[in-house]
């Protein structure tokens, strides 16, 4: 086996034991690693019982996986998955963390956490040897304070090398907030999916990994070295604007030109605040540019610092998604305000997208008089950083109105609709439990297509959009391959280069059709688990839809009046089902399962018919 070790490290937190699980090469060839491997392992373990698995019970496995391209392809991503407390399916969340490299340097392709601890603990893995240690001294901490204290704890408690990377949760994860992320390196988050809450349910504060070995051997090291050097140069050249400005480039560009940026809970998608741009951030907050992750030639990050009310707020960029969701979506158009809220989200261990979405939902309800001052305890106002920071903390600690909002937009809308006796789901900008990423579809100018979110097996995830052609870099098959490889979407060039890379690493000699079939296989199996769903929500053909607001005309900007058309979406939906080999209800057909080598999962289809 080349490029992978063929084994995972499984830790049983309840029993305090660990063991190695062998994974045959055939499984890697079918699912690669990361998101694909997680989907396969979960489907095989739970099958029809998936419906009854509560994502927030310790029974939900939490998987930290790498893939064959980890450590060889420029850049690094660690895949984080399990049953999502947002979508009740598998979400392939990724975070830039060197834990991925250290796992592979330990002789394992991934780490699976099962069961849970009674008391707060952290997991330390050195060369595959697992220790489950007391974390009571760092429980409750987040951000820089956690990083400093955990570094010292690792040194004192387990004599760890100073170069020991870790992933962790903040207070939000501890409190099982459904919008909590698994955090890394201060400002990095595996946000989509809500796996911070899954980690919190296991009472695992952090996972630190150190490996002293080399990465697994590859099939063709010499040509891989050549390929590596040329890829580095090509990626650097292609992404040089990100080197300079990061994704913060989109903060003004996406709003002003593309008109696809969330403004005030998506009531608008256009803005023209020139100071709210990469230049505004550079002048007001950037102290270091560029900043890169392991092996990455893009370097899209910039270290930002803002002082506000006597406190120091430190974060990355913020990147476009954060600037949009914790900026314009909340009516905040000042770089400093966006840095303060982004840094606070990092510190609390919240996903900025999911949390910024539910906060926008709450402010809109307040403005409309549906939520009252009595219920909230203070005034909610667009653009008021002070009240927004307070709301964010209330969500992380599940205080007051935060208790409902901590359930995420989909569940909060359901709960508040029941309470108020009116349908509030029309203000919820989410698909299948996942808040929509900050790239709108109404103007038609941004990359997502009209069915991108409606048909994604990861709901509103803007890093896993469905699209036509179904075997292309526009398709969800492509995104699922990136999350399974595991590679960063900002370092990839095109499908043939990635395939060449994969073949040089593994020696599989796949062609482009087989390559895309890997992606089709992954999303087909994810689709089955999504449709099985449970226990507190499940989805059917009617949920393969956009948020209602996307059918309303844009009120401002150059694309004023533009909206999605119901007939067009329905038409594309039918076409997509047919091309994916799914029936008219979007259920994968037996024949499709056979073609993709997923016959063993055919009995699960009975639950859907």
């Amino acid at each position, binding site marked *: 086996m080349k490029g992978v070790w063929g084994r995972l490290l499984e830790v049983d937190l309840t029993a305090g034991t660990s063991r190695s699980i062998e994974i045959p090469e055939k499984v890697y060839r079918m699912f690669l690693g990361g998101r694909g491997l997680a989907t396969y392992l979960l489907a095989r373990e739970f099958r029809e019982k998936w419906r009854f698995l509560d994502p927030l019970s310790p029974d939900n496995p939490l998987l930290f996986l790498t893939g064959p391209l980890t450590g060889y392809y420029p850049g690094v991503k660690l895949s984080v998955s399990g049953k999502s407390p947002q979508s009740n399916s598998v979400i392939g969340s990724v975070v830039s963390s060197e834990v991925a490299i250290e796992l592979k340097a330990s002789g394992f392709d991934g780490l699976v956490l099962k069961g849970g601890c009674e008391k707060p603990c952290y997991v330390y893995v050195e060369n595959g040897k697992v220790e489950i240690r007391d974390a009571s001294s760092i429980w409750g901490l987040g951000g820089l304070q956690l990083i400093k204290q955990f570094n010292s704890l690792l040194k004192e408690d387990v004599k760890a090398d100073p170069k020991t990377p870790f992933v962790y949760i903040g207070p939000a994860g501890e409190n099982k907030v459904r919008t909590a992320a698994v955090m890394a390196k201060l400002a990095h988050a595996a946000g989509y999916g809500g796996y911070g809450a899954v980690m919190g349910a296991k009472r695992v504060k952090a996972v630190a990994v150190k490996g002293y*070995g080399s990465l697994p051997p590859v099939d063709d090291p010499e040509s891989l070295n050549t390929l590596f050097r040329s890829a580095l140069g090509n990626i650097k050249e292609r992404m040089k604007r990100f080197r300079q400005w990061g994704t913060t480039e989109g903060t003004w560009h996406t709003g002003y030109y593309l008109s696809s940026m969330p403004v005030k809970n998506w009531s608008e998608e256009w803005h023209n605040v020139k100071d709210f741009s990469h230049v505004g951030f550079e002048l007001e907050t950037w102290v270091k540019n560029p900043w890169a992750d*392991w092996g990455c030639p893009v370097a899209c990050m910039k270290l930002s610092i803002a002082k506000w009310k006597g406190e120091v707020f430190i974060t990355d960029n913020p990147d476009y998604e954060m600037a949009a969701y914790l900026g314009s979506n909340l009516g905040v158009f000042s770089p400093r305000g966006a840095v303060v809220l982004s840094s606070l989200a990092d510190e609390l261990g919240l996903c900025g997208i999911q949390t910024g979405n539910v906060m926008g939902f709450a402010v809109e309800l307040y403005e409309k008089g549906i939520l009252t001052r009595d219920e909230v305890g203070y005034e909610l106002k667009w653009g008021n950083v002070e009240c927004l920071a307070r709301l964010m903390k209330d969500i992380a600690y599940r205080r007051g109105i935060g208790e409902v909002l901590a359930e995420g937009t989909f569940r909060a809308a359901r709960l508040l609709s029941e309470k108020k006796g009116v349908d509030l789901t029309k203000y919820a900008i989410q698909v299948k439990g996942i808040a929509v990423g900050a790239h709108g579809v109404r103007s038609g100018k941004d990359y997502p297509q009209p069915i991108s979110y409606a048909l994604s097996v990861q709901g509103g995830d803007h890093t896993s959009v469905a699209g036509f052609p179904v075997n292309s870099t526009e398709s969800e098959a492509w995104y699922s391959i990136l999350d399974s490889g595991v590679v960063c979407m900002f370092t990839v060039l095109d499908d043939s280069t990635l395939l060449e890379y994969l073949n040089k690493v593994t020696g599989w000699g796949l062609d482009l059709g087989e390559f895309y079939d890997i992606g089709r296989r992954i999303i087909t199996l994810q689709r089955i688990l999504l449709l099985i769903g449970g226990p507190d929500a499940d989805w059917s053909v009617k949920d393969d839809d956009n948020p209602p607001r996307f059918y309303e005309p844009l009120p401002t900007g150059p694309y004023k009046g533009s909206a999605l058309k119901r007939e067009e979406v329905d038409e594309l939906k039918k076409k997509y089902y047919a091309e994916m080999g799914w029936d008219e209800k979007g259920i994968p057909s037996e024949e499709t399962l056979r073609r993709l080598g997923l016959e063993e999962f055919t009995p699960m289809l009975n639950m859907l018919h």
Partner: protein
Amino acid sequence: MRDFSKCSSCKLCEIACSLKHEGMVWPEASRIRIYELIPGLPVISTCVQCDDYPCVSSCPFQALSTGEHGQVLVDENKCTLCGTCVYACPGKIPRIVRGKQSVIICDLCNGEPECVKICGEMGYHALQLVNKPDGEIVKNYLISPEDASFKLLAKAIGEE
């Protein structure tokens, strides 16, 4: 020479170093280490080729010597991994790595360091090869990564 402020912490130098010396991606076997204890504020750590080479003189087995570029050379047959050089080094730079039969110390790639090359190719130039200045000045770089990290943080957030 190293410039912390230009380092992006991409660690491509570690990858290039292990590819050159070990023929594989093996971050722990890199002769240069980037410590990112405070995210975004990396500390570069590698051999500075001291004038008095305390590592060389400390070795009880005469396994260490110096080369024409001032680099420290390790005789793999003589090294017993006793660790004396690690303690003799003011920066604790030599490394004993599991799976390696001798201690690892930067050998400047015989005058053309891969780390410097890749750092330049990436456009950072955080690492540059210069002629060694006289005296002890280079030893000032041998501050512990922890101390250096906290100083960089204090500077970044403007603390006294």
